[in-house]
């Protein structure tokens, strides 16, 4: 089987606009969560959200390139520029090779809502403008990045709810392992505008701890009361090992295992069996002993049932192994379609810099999280292998295992 390595990473998130900024925020335990009063005026139950600025790409891209990009495609562009630069890939390389693109994305609400508003108000579809259709489609990120960077390998958006980014990396790795591609730009993107998550707020899934935004996302804590929506984009360049060696690429890690499963159960409430199966499959495919895993980046979003059932699933698989488990969502909120990719990058930054960021706000365990080793404060630790979970609505599960190189 061909080996799959990571040769570049890029990130645009509420913790920073570059790997260096994000690494510092992780180390410092910075929260990216704020209270957005405009959401309250819109009728939101919770006005909590991650805060990040939409990049102005006027200097980097032409008007016609920008016209088709919703906010999450702009985040993805920034993350991808950084990832390609770190992987030492320039446009000349992309023009001469068939490089693929697989990105997780599962909505594009803002342009959709704006186009519908225009149609209802003006009764004239021309007034929606030329960008609306391309911005509104679920595949907007892959169609935009694919045309901007002139990519000619596989071009595919992976929509697997909050596991989209992890599935994109896992499926991309499979295409490389089987010899169908040598290099794929993978990642996940998430819009942050209120239209995208208003109906999510409507099912009372969000924390309402509005008096202390930085305390609201508290995965595994006994007093958690819901998630906080976040977003941005994260890109990893995955590549066949020999291919990377041959071109002198900076090889930073290996995708060792990808596990997946579906719960076949409730549309929003996760169970324990599905996630456990995904973890076991990833470990089996990685061909490693669980004692080799030095850190677990949990999906844990700060919801009652989700965190409880993930804690049970981790305990099912790891037992009393007591590997450190944290959820970086305590700092970022839930980055949803992006999370599977961004959390690989957060974990990579920790792995490369010998620390595990604090699981913020973990003040009191509940019955299940008490069985796990969850550091409430940052710890300095060297580890060479980590496991990252991503679970989504509909019961889709993905687990990735990554090893330091």
């Amino acid at each position, binding site marked *: 089987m061909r080996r799959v390595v990571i040769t570049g990473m890029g990130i645009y998130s509420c913790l920073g606009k570059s790997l260096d900024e994000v690494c510092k925020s992780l180390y410092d335990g910075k929260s990216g969560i704020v209270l957005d009063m405009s959401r309250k005026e819109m009728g939101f139950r919770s006005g909590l959200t991650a805060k990040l600025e939409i990049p102005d790409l006027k200097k980097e891209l032409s*008007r*016609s390139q920008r016209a088709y990009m919703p906010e999450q495609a702009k985040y993805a562009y920034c993350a991808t520029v950084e990832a390609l630069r770190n992987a030492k890939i320039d446009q000349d390389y992309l023009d001469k090779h068939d490089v693929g693109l697989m990105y997780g994305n599962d909505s594009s609400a803002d342009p959709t809502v704006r186009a519908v508003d225009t149609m209802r108000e003006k009764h*004239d579809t*021309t*007034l929606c*403008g*030329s960008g609306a259709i391309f911005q509104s489609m679920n595949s907007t990120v892959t169609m935009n990045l694919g045309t901007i960077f002139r990519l000619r390998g596989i071009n595919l958006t992976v929509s697997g709810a909050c596991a989209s980014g992890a599935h994109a990396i896992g499926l991309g790795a499979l295409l490389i392992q089987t010899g169908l591609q040598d290099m794929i730009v993978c990642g996940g993107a998430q819009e942050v505008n209120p239209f995208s998550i208003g109906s999510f707020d409507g099912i009372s899934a969000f924390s309402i701890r509005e008096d202390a935004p930085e305390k609201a996302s508290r995965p595994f804590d006994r007093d958690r009361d819901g998630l906080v929506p976040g977003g941005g984009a994260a890109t990893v360049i995955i590549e066949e090992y020999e291919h990377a060696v041959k071109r002198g690429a900076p090889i930073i890690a290996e995708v060792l295992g990808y596990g997946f499963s579906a719960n076949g159960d409730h549309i929003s409430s996760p169970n324990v069996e599905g996630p456990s199966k995904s973890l076991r499959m990833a470990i089996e495919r990685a061909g490693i002993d669980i004692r080799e895993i030095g850190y677990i980046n949990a999906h844990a979003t700060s919801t009652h049932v989700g965190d409880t059932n993930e804690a049970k699933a981790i305990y099912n698989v790891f037992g009393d192994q007591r590997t450190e488990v944290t959820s970086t969502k305590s700092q970022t909120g839930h980055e949803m379609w992006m999370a599977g990719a961004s959390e690989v990058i957060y974990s990579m930054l920790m792995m490369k810099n010998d620390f595990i960021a604090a699981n913020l706000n973990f003040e009191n365990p509940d019955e299940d999280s008490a069985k796990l080793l969850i550091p409430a404060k940052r710890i300095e630790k060297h580890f060479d292998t980590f496991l990252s979970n991503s679970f989504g609505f509909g019961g889709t599960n993905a687990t990735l295992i990554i090893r330091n190189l």
Partner: protein
Amino acid sequence: MDKQELISKVNSVLAEEFEVEESVITPEANIKQTLELDSLSLVDMVALIENEFGVKIASNELVKIPTFQSLYDYLAERV
């Protein structure tokens, strides 16, 4: 709005939207070439004109409006 005001506003909104210097917009210049419009961005120009001047240019009339002067004249008759 007299015709000079109309010309001035047309030049201003088109230059801003399509990110060109106003100085490149001359009466005899070709609109598509000057603003670097393709079939998609042409839709944006039609939408912009409709939003700014309340005049909808039908797609079959676009061929009759190749230059900025022809656009000024078309709008002057309808605004």
